[in-house]
């Protein structure tokens, strides 16, 4: 008995449940097989025709969508290296600012003696005036008078 055409079409399209399709395949007549063969040829022909037609018409979705999008100014693109450099500069600057403020505003500041030697006289061969740093990095003036024993009897 020949299978109904709609059922044969569903079998061809793999739309039947697997057990039903399996049972149906066992009962196919020669006529049904020929119909399935014809369906396969028709399907192949249609697929080839549609593909050839689509190839001749290039689909351009962007041009139609772009016109519908709201107008925006182009985004500013910052190279990653420059962006990192900017951030580093900002962080270093902020740290430098904080450090300098701490240095300038710390309690007891200014601690620098700012010593000025206006006069200096010594006996003997002379003296050396030098700067030595204190705990805050400020300079303390040191007058080094290299006193020799023979200077004991001299006087200014």
């Amino acid at each position: 008995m020949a299978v109904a055409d709609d059922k044969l079409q569903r079998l061809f399209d793999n739309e039947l449940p697997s057990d039903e399709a399996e049972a149906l395949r066992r009962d196919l007549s020669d006529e049904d097989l020929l119909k399935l063969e014809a369906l396969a040829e028709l399907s192949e022909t249609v697929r080839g025709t549609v593909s050839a037609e689509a190839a001749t018409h290039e689909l351009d979705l962007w041009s139609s969508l772009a016109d519908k999008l709201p107008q925006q100014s182009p985004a500013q693109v910052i190279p990653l290296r420059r962006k990192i450099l900017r951030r580093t500069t900002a962080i270093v600057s902020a740290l430098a600012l904080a450090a300098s403020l701490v240095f300038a505003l710390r309690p007891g500041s200014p601690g620098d003696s700012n010593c000025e030697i206006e006069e200096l006289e010594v006996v003997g061969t002379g003296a050396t005036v030098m700067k030595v740093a204190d705990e805050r990095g400020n300079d303390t003036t040191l007058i080094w008078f290299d006193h020799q024993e023979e200077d004991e009897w001299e006087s200014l």
Partner: protein
Amino acid sequence: MGKSVIGKWASPLAVLALFSLGLPQVSAAQADAPKSAPSDGKASPDAAGKAVCSVRVIHATANGTDFDARLEPLRPQLKGQAFQSFTRFALLKQHELSIAGGASQNFDMPGEHQGVLAYEGRADASGKHRLRLRLEIQDGKAKLLSTKFVINDGGTVMQAGLKYDKGVLVLGITCRSAG
């Protein structure tokens, strides 16, 4: 794409940082500006008030490694390159002097030496309180050293080099104005 907040403030922050880093140098430079006080060092006692000075007499030697705990305020200076030949520092005496403007006070030093510290008055400059002092070191009647200097209020000046007991004597003089 918007600018990052940090990136936006980078330049102003850099300018601020450079400006504030320059502040200590500017203030130091101002302190070195010509003094408005008379240079003869003869301020009247009323105008000068008095100076309160702490004179530390220190013995520095190369024998031992002890560091007198009372010398902590001067540790950075004493442990610096200028005193690299010495490893032991002892506070022999600390004199607290109150010196009226135009007056002087003596203080004892080991080895029959004597120190004389005179307060010659204020020498303010650029809004900074500064003191003009004279230090003399005597050996009996002989004057070995005489120096006149100006320091910030609360500042310290050091003198060293007098030979004493296998080492040298170091003076640490810190003065501030009072009254």
